[in-house]
C-alpha cells in the first residue's frame, strides 16, 4: 500500500497538504472544500497521483483542523466541527484546553485511520458490485444520491432539494452532450462548453464567505489560552474508547452514503455518544465523550466518503466532489475500471490518507498552539488575499474571464442562499451528478425504447428507488420526533 508513496516528492506533497489542510481547517469560513478547489489549478503542475495525494491530505487534515478553532474560540473552523464546539469550548473555558485538544486529536486520528481501513476493504467490494450496474442502475443510484441531499443536516430538506435541483440545472447549461443542441447559452459561445465546476465551488464557498465576513466585522472572538496539547489520561481513554469506536463506525457508514459528509456524521456521532453515555448530563458542559464522539465521527467520514467517490464516481461529500473533479482533470476516471486497471494509483491514495492521519496527529499535537495563532490574521487582510488567489486560480483554469465572472456571480448567489437557509452543498453535489443523472436517464430510455415502467423490472433500480423514498421521508420523521 505504501510502495507508490516511496518517493521524496510524494512525501513532500503529503506533508505540505497536511499543513495546508490544517491551516484551512483552522480558519473559519475556509475549509477543505474551498481549499481543495482553490489549490486545484496548482495541481496541474503535478502528476495525477501527487495531485490526488495533495487533495486527500488537505481533506483529512482540514477536517481535523476545524476542531482547533471550535475548542479555542467556539467557532467551528469547518461545518463538520460544529458539534465539537458544544463540549470543546466549555472544557477549554474550565482551563482544560490542552486536554480538549488532545482528546480531539486522538479521536480524530483513530476515526480517520478506522475509515481508511473501511475504504481499503469496502471500495473494491463496491467497485466489484458496480460491474453489475447498467445505465438504469447508475440513474437510480444518482437519484438516491440526490435524495440524500434532503437530510444533509444544514437547512430544511425541501430547501436542500431545491438547491440540488438548481445544481443539476446548472449542469444542463451548454451543448446537450447527446444532440449538440445549445441550452441556456443565450448566444454566448463560451457557455456552449458548459459552466465549470471549480468556478461555481469557489464562488459558492470562498466568495460567498467573503461577503458573509463583510457582515460580521463587529464580531469579537473570545480566545481561550492554550499552553500545550495534552494526551488523554488513562481515565479519559477508559471513558471514551467505546465512544470513539462507535463514532468511527457511524462516521464511516455516513461517509459512504452519497452526498452525506462529516457534518452529518459528527452530529449523529455526538448525539449517539450522549445517548450511550453514563453521564449524559455532562454533555454541553465540557464532556470529553462529546468531543470524542463528534471528532471521531467527522474524521471517519473522510475515508467513508472516498468509497463511493472512487468506486462509483459518486461523491460522498462536497470535498470529495472537488477530489472527483481533480481526478477527472488529471485523466483518471473513477469507477470499477480504476480498480482493475490502476491498482497502484489506488494504493497510493489509501496509503496517503493513512499517513495524512498520522501526520496531522503529529502536527496537531506539537503545533496546535501555532495553528491557533493563524486565527489572529485579521479578516481585513486575509480575505482580500484569498480573493486574489481565487481570481487568479479561476482564471488559470481555462484562461477565461467568463469563469471569473461566473465565480463572482455564484459568490453573490451563495451568500443569499446561505442567508435564507439554503445550503450550498447540494448545489455542488447536484452540479457534479447532473450529467450522470441526465445521461443515464436518456440512455436508459433508449434501452427501454421510451417505456419508463421498464425501470421497475430491474431489482437494483427498485432497491435504489425505495432507498430514495426512505431518504425523502426520513427527515420528516426525524423532524416530527424532534418536536
Amino acid at each position, binding site marked *: 500500500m505504501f510502495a507508490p508513496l516511496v518517493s521524496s516528492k510524494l512525501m513532500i506533497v503529503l506533508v505540505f497538504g497536511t499543513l495546508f489542510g490544517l491551516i484551512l481547517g483552522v480558519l473559519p469560513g475556509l475549509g477543505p472544500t474551498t481549499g481543495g478547489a482553490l489549490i486545484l*489549478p*496548482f495541481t*496541474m*503542475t503535478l502528476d495525477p497521483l501527487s495531485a490526488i495525494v495533495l487533495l486527500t491530505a488537505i481533506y483529512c487534515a482540514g477536517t481535523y483542523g476545524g476542531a482547533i478553532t471550535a475548542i479555542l474560540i467556539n467557532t467551528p473552523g469547518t461545518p463538520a466541527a460544529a458539534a465539537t464546539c458544544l463540549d470543546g469550548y466549555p472544557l477549554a473555558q474550565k482551563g482544560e484546553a490542552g486536554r480538549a485538544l488532545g482528546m480531539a486529536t486522538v479521536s480524530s486520528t483513530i476515526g480517520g485511520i478506522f475509515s481508511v481501513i473501511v475504504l481499503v476493504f469496502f471500495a473494491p467490494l463496491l467497485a466489484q458490485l458496480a460491474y453489475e450496474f447498467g445505465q438504469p442502475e447508475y440513474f437510480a443510484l444518482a437519484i438516491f444520491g440526490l435524495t440524500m441531499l434532503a437530510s444533509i443536516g444544514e437547512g*430544511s430538506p*425541501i*430547501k436542500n*432539494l*431545491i438547491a440540488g*435541483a*438548481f445544481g*443539476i*440545472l446548472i449542469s*444542463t447549461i451548454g451543448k*446537450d452532450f*447527446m*444532440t449538440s*443542441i*445549445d*441550452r*441556456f447559452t*443565450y448566444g454566448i459561445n463560451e457557455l456552449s462548453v458548459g459552466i465549470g465546476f471549480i468556478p461555481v465551488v469557489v464562488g459558492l464557498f470562498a466568495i460567498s464567505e*467573503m*461577503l458573509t465576513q*463583510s*457582515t460580521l*466585522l*463587529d464580531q469579537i472572538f473570545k480566545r481561550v489560552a492554550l499552553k500545550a496539547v495534552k494526551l488523554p489520561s488513562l481515565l479519559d481513554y477508559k471513558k471514551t474508547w467505546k465512544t470513539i469506536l462507535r463514532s468511527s463506525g457511524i462516521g464511516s457508514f455516513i461517509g459512504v452514503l452519497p452526498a452525506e459528509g462529516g457534518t452529518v456524521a459528527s452530529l449523529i456521532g455526538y448525539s449517539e455518544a450522549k445517548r450511550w453515555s453514563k453521564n449524559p448530563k455532562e454533555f454541553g458542559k465540557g464532556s470529553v465523550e462529546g468531543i470524542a464522539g463528534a471528532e471521531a465521527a467527522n474524521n471517519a467520514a473522510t475515508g467513508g466518503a472516498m468509497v463511493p467517490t472512487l468506486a462509483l464516481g459518486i461523491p460522498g461529500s462536497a470535498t470529495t466532489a472537488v477530489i472527483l473533479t481533480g481526478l477527472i482533470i488529471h485523466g483518471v476516471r473513477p469507477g470499477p475500471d480504476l480498480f482493475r486497471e490502476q491498482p497502484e494509483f489506488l494504493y497510493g491514495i489509501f496509503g496517503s490518507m493513512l499517513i495524512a492521519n498520522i501526520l496531522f496527529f503529529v502536527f496537531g499535537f506539537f503545533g496546535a498552539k501555532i495553528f491557533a495563532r493563524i486565527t489572529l490574521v*485579521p*479578516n*481585513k*487582510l486575509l*480575505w*482580500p*488575499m484569498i*480573493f*486574489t*488567489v481565487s*481570481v*487568479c486560480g479561476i*482564471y*488559470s483554469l481555462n*484562461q477565461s*474571464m467568463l469563469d*471569473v*465572472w461566473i465565480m*463572482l456571480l455564484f*459568490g*453573490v448567489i451563495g451568500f443569499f442562499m446561505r*442567508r*435564507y*437557509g439554503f445550503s450550498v452543498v447540494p448545489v455542488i453535489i447536484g452540479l457534479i451528478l447532473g450529467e450522470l443523472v*441526465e445521461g443515464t*436517464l*436518456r*440512455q*436508459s*430510455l*433508449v434501452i427501454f425504447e*421510451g417505456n419508463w415502467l421498464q425501470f421497475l423490472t430491474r431489482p437494483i433500480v427498485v432497491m435504489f428507488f425505495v432507498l430514495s423514498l426512505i431518504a425523502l421521508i426520513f427527515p420528516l420523521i426525524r423532524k416530527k420526533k424532534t418536536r
Partner: protein
Amino acid sequence: MNNVQKQKRANKSLPFFFKDEFKVSFIIIFVSTILLISTFTFDIVPPILNRGIQPATFPKALLVIIISLTLVVFYLSIKKPWKIEKKLPRTFFLTLLNFILFVIVSKTLDFFLAIALLSVLVSYFWGERRILYLILVSIIFPIIVFIFFETILGLRFPPGIITNIYYQV
C-alpha cells in the same frame, strides 16, 4: 418575551409582500419561469436523433420541480414564518460595490489593477488603516501571486495597461 418570539411577532405584522419568505419565493419562481419559457426556444431534434427525450425535456422537468418545491416552501412559511434576518451592514454593500468595480476595471483597464484596487478598497472599508499593510495586500501579495502563476504555471494573464508593460507589448 424572548428575542425569537419578538422577531416572529414582528415578522407576522409585516404585509406578506415585505416578508423574506415571499421575496425569496417570488424571485426563485420568477427566474425559474423565465428559464422555463426559454426552454421552449430550444431546438427540437428529429425522432431519429432523439435519444430517449428531447434536449429541453430534462431542464423543463427540473424547473417545474424547483417551482413546485418553492411553492411548498412558501406554503410552509405561512404556517411557520422565517426568522427576520438582520439588516445588511454598509460594509456588505461596499464589498459588493467593489466586486462591480473589479468587473469594470478588469474589463476596461487591467486585470491586475482591478485586483489591487479591490484588495486595497476592501481592506480599507473593513477597517485597515495602516499604509504598510494596505500596500502588502494590494501590491506585494498580488505581485507574488502573479509571478507564481506566470513562472510556475506558465500562465499568460489578459492584456491591460499594467500586464502589457510586463509582457512588453
